[in-house]
């Protein structure tokens, strides 16, 4: 009989309810479809009626533009070249920032003296928007790759460090007691409690960093560049081609979304025990 003890899995099975109009109307997938179709129809309508004159392209024109970009060379390279140019900058800047910022954040939380030295400087730079560095980066490093990567590093550094720092500081103190009671050393505490427990916070920081990094790369490319998705948008702006602007926006959104999914995937691999909220 013991197999029925503490059988709390009942919540996983669902009740089947009969079909009805109300249930269809409140079905999530149905509503999602309605909203997306309405959105694109509205967009198409606004573009067709020229409410913004010639400054809004129809959805199909945007798709057409993107497809054309894969076939022709635009400013020396085709679509994949532009996507890769931006992604490359992100990857380099993001990794450099994460490699320095995360350990520094962890270290700051673990060592009071490091904290006392670094924290005030960090607080000084924290409120400064990374995009504000664009101009001075160009002044320092010229208009090449270095200045763009520099801005990305500046932008992704702050959230990485902050989250790693808070992640360690907000570890439940009782978790340390578990290790201490078992006779663990300070080293054990750090490696078996501190780091794993702060992982979710670190990953949250990486996610924020990534989205900031995309904003930064875009800003840098808008200010000055010869390739990249930001360049496409900028060129669309200069030549007044809304379909190119919208195409660039969609591409960058897709790229940003994909990279953030990659980080989530990594997170699920590295800390599968993390609690999640349903449907978020």
């Amino acid at each position, binding site marked *: 009989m013991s197999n029925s003890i503490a059988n709390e899995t009942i919540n996983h099975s669902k009740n089947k309810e009969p079909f009805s109009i109300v249930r269809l109307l409140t079905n999530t997938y149905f509503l999602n479809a309605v909203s997306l179709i309405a959105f694109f129809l509205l967009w198409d309508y606004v573009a067709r009626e020229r409410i*913004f004159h010639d400054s809004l392209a129809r959805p199909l024109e945007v798709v057409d533009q993107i497809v054309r970009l894969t076939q022709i060379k635009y400013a020396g390279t085709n679509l994949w070249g532009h996507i890769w140019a931006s992604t490359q900058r992100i990857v380099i800047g993001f990794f450099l920032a994460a490699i320095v910022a995360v350990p520094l954040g962890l270290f700051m939380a673990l060592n009071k003296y490091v904290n*006392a030295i670094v924290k005030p400087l960090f607080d000084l730079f924290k409120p400064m928007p990374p995009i504000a560095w664009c101009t001075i980066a160009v002044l320092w490093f010229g208009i090449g790759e270095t200045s763009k990567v520099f801005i990305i590093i500046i932008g992704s550094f702050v959230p990485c460090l902050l989250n790693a720092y808070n992640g360690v500081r907000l570890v439940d103190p009782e978790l340390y007691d578990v290790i201490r009671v078992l006779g663990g050393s300070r080293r054990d505490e750090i490696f078996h409690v501190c780091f794993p427990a702060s992982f979710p916070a670190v990953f949250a920081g990486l996610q924020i960093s990534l989205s900031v990094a995309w904003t930064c790369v875009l800003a840098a490319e808008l200010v000055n560049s010869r390739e990249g998705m930001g360049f496409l948008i900028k060129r*669309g702006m200069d030549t007044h081609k809304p379909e190119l602007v919208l195409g660039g926006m969609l591409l960058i959104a897709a790229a940003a979304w994909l990279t953030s999914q990659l980080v989530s995937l990594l997170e699920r691999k590295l800390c599968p025990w993390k609690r999640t909220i349903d449907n978020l």
Partner: protein
Amino acid sequence: MAYKEVEVKQPLMLTILPYVSIIAFFALWELVVQTGFIPDTLLAAPSTVVKTFIVKLHDINPDGATMGTHAWTSIQEAFLGYALSLLIGIPLGLCMGWFKVVEGLCRPIFELIRPIPPIAWIPLTVFWFGIGLTGKVFIIWIAGIVPCVINSWVGVRMTNPTLIQMARTYGASDWQIFTQLCIPSALPMVFGALQLALTYCWTNLVGAELLAADSGLGYLITMGGRVARPDIVVLGMICVGVSGAIIGFVIDQVEKKLLAGIRR
């Protein structure tokens, strides 16, 4: 059972170090510029920046407006955009958290727009609204609305389900549960959104002004770069940072006052 703050004496070293660190930073900065280690065409010394600040308070050269005008333009844009994003984002997020229909309708569009960095909208807003106030307010609105919606939504979702059941057994209606339980319990998250949205707004404000503006702190930075005056660039950056920090601090204080009952 009140909690008493206990003063813990910390080593003198720890009290002094932060000041040492800040002073050392500025001293080093001043030194590398004064000694010519970094040429003053690339970086301005802190003392020069202070001088420039005082001059810029009344001098409109070389960028066409005084410090006050720039700051006022930026603050105006930021606040309009920020207020609009709160006004629309928070109720929308709260409703998305509780009403399945609202969520079903709004979520796909929201998810579609969310990954687009707000400054990617700049070209379109320039096409649509010109480089005036409206365009920038639009970009700031887009930037601020994302954290508002997400946090209020998550806040409602994290309402303790037992509390909802409790209210249901007393026969509370959906609307009553929403207003009496979900909204109050989402408040801490919503206040988190206030801070977050402000940071986003401020960042994107600078971006918007870098690219399409004729005054404002971001424009000051751009012009400083264009006329090769690093002191103006650094001054602009510091002003942006300081004003952002001040607004953030004010919101923090308000939050502490309002949430006294909810947080321990």
